[in-house]
């Protein structure tokens, strides 16, 4: 009997011939990532009382949630982490202005490779399954244990397989696909499971789009999620990662708990929207009704990459953001920021009336750079719409693709990009 990707990676990392679901194994960790909550990890680590981390070269710390520091409290936290990084000789540290959102920086800078076990003190660490890594989120105290021992216990997850075929209709993206799937399976639909996305429609996707799937798989409870290790991925990795790259794949006779088939052409006729206050409260755009939009956000580890800024620029080009709406754009990293500058996307967005935030989590985390007031509606390309996530507990967050966010910013209400682009200057505000 063959093994799934999750089983293969855990078997090797725990020094076994094979493993099967529900078995508990102790696996070696290849990479341990933290953002500002490295400060919490540091505190737990100091409490344990071991002097040195197990392997400084395997720890990566990236500031992204509150950059630049928005308060004295955060500044103090940042300082404590910087001092710890220096004292422990941790070589991979991305300070303000050097990195961006952790899940963007990690692969961009070549830290992620197929077959590795990667843990991060952030739930969306599942993102790195787009690079063939067994990657999952853990808490700060657990990370202190990893910093101490370099190993962690895992229960081997059973696996779901999602096969996607068919052609995406115009304006429909990976974001719509994954929202559709979450709506179908529910917020706990993949709890504790490994999810493997596969099929021709996935193999055609850019690496950036695959990251949207593995990122949001977390919102249906997935422990890890994978897209295929294929030529598309390898050509992304080769210039970034040193040494041999392992082409890892599930065995043809691997056992899946369930296989779900999706036809992108037939099942995704319209953009999908996750309505307040749950990511699995997914409706096709036309079923949501008239929603005036006060804030529109493009960014985050879900949809803050070049292809996202490109489609947004395409939608807003030559138009103006609606007078009642604020459009906020946060490039996911310094690299994305530079590239978007060079390609003119930011020029187009700013000309339309967007405000550009520094690379980082921005308003996604609800602490700075675009907090919502009571009664406000926000359409966002991010990944969570829980009560109070982006500000007031009486605000409302609709999750959508970057194209829908950009269109809604122009229309001043939830809108289909096609309608905005077709109707041209109808919503143009007076200067």
């Amino acid at each position, binding site marked *: 009997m063959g093994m799934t990707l999750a089983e293969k990676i855990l078997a090797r990392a725990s020094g076994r011939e094979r493993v099967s679901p529900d078995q*508990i194994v102790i696996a070696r960790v290849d990479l341990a990532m933290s953002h*500002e*909550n490295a*400060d*919490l990890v540091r*505190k*737990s680590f100091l*409490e*344990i*009382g*071991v002097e040195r981390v197990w392997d400084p070269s395997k720890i990566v710390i990236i500031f992204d*949630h*509150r950059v630049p520091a928005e*308060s004295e*409290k*955060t500044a103090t*936290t940042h300082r404590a982490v910087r001092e710890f990084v220096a004292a422990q000789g941790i070589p991979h540290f991305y300070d303000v202005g050097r990195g961006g959102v952790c899940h963007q920086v990690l692969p961009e800078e070549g830290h992620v490779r197929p077959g590795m076990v990667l843990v*991060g*003190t*952030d*739930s969306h*660490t599942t993102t790195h399954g787009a690079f063939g890594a067994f990657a999952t*989120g*853990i*808490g*700060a*105290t*657990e990370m*202190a*244990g990893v910093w*101490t*021992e370099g190993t962690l*216990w895992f*229960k081997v997850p059973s696996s779901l397989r999602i096969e996607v075929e068919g052609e995406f209709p115009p304006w429909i993206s990976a974001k719509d696909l994954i929202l559709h799937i979450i709506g179908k399976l529910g*917020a*706990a639909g993949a*709890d*504790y499971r490994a999810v493997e996305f596969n099929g021709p429609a996935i193999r055609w996707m850019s690496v950036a789009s695959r990251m949207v799937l593995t990122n949001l798989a977390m919102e249906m*409870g997935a*422990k890890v999620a994978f897209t295929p290790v294929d030529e598309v991925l390898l050509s992304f990795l080769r210039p970034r990662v040193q040494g041999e790259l392992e082409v890892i794949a599930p065995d043809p006779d691997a056992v899946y708990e369930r296989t779900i088939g999706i036809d992108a052409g037939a099942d995704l006729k319209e953009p999908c929207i996750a309505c307040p206050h*749950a990511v699995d409260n997914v409706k096709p755009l036309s079923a949501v009704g008239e929603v005036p939009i006060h804030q529109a956000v493009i960014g985050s580890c879900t949809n803050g990459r070049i292809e996202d800024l490109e489609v947004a620029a395409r939608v807003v080009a030559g138009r103006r953001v609606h007078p009642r709406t604020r459009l906020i754009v946060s490039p996911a990293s310094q690299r994305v920021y530079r590239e978007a500058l060079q390609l003119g996307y930011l020029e187009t967005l700013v000309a339309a009336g967007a405000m550009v935030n520094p690379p980082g989590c921005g308003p996604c*985390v*609800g*602490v700075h750079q675009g907090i919502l007031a009571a009664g406000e509606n926000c359409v966002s390309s991010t990944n*969570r719409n*829980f*009560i*109070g*996530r982006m500000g007031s*507990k009486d605000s409302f967050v609709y999750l959508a693709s970057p194209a829908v966010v950009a269109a809604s910013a122009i229309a001043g209400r939830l809108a289909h990009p096609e309608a905005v682009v077709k109707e041209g200057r109808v919503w143009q505000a007076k200067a």
Partner: protein
Amino acid sequence: MAGESLKLRGRVRAVLGANIDTDIIYPGRYLNITDREKTAEHLFELSYPDVRAAIQAGEFIVAGANFGCGSSREQAAAALKFAGIGAVVAASFARIFFRNAINLGLPAVVAPDMAANCAAGDELEIDLVAGAIRNLTTGITVQAAPLDPRAAELLAAGGLIPYLKHKYLQEANATCPSTV
């Protein structure tokens, strides 16, 4: 000692629904509070502030499926623990929350039928190892998933930090002949 500490008795403070996410438990805006004790002040701040205000030490929270979904924030588990909650009983837990709770020494008990079989104020007796919860108020007993051995070991130690502390202290002692 371990056996004793893995049996709990207390009252139900609140019975909550499904998908209680970490933003409900502990709002993101307080993530820069890194003193675990202080997190308790913001427990349930946005959605159930009255629950927090009424908590007596050792009381239980009972909830539906997928408790603790969302962010990896350990503060969610810490806030419950330091507000005095003795255990969370839910139909199921999101995995990171479950691990955080156990790592901080907060029992997280999986019992699919508990929410339907208790009300706020009921007194429960939880046997973590056997996987049984008796509602002393109604006389009903519901099944719970017995803790797996690894989690039981961590809870018995009081969480991951004391567990590792002990482990490494022992190792340090073992390598030092004068203490043998």
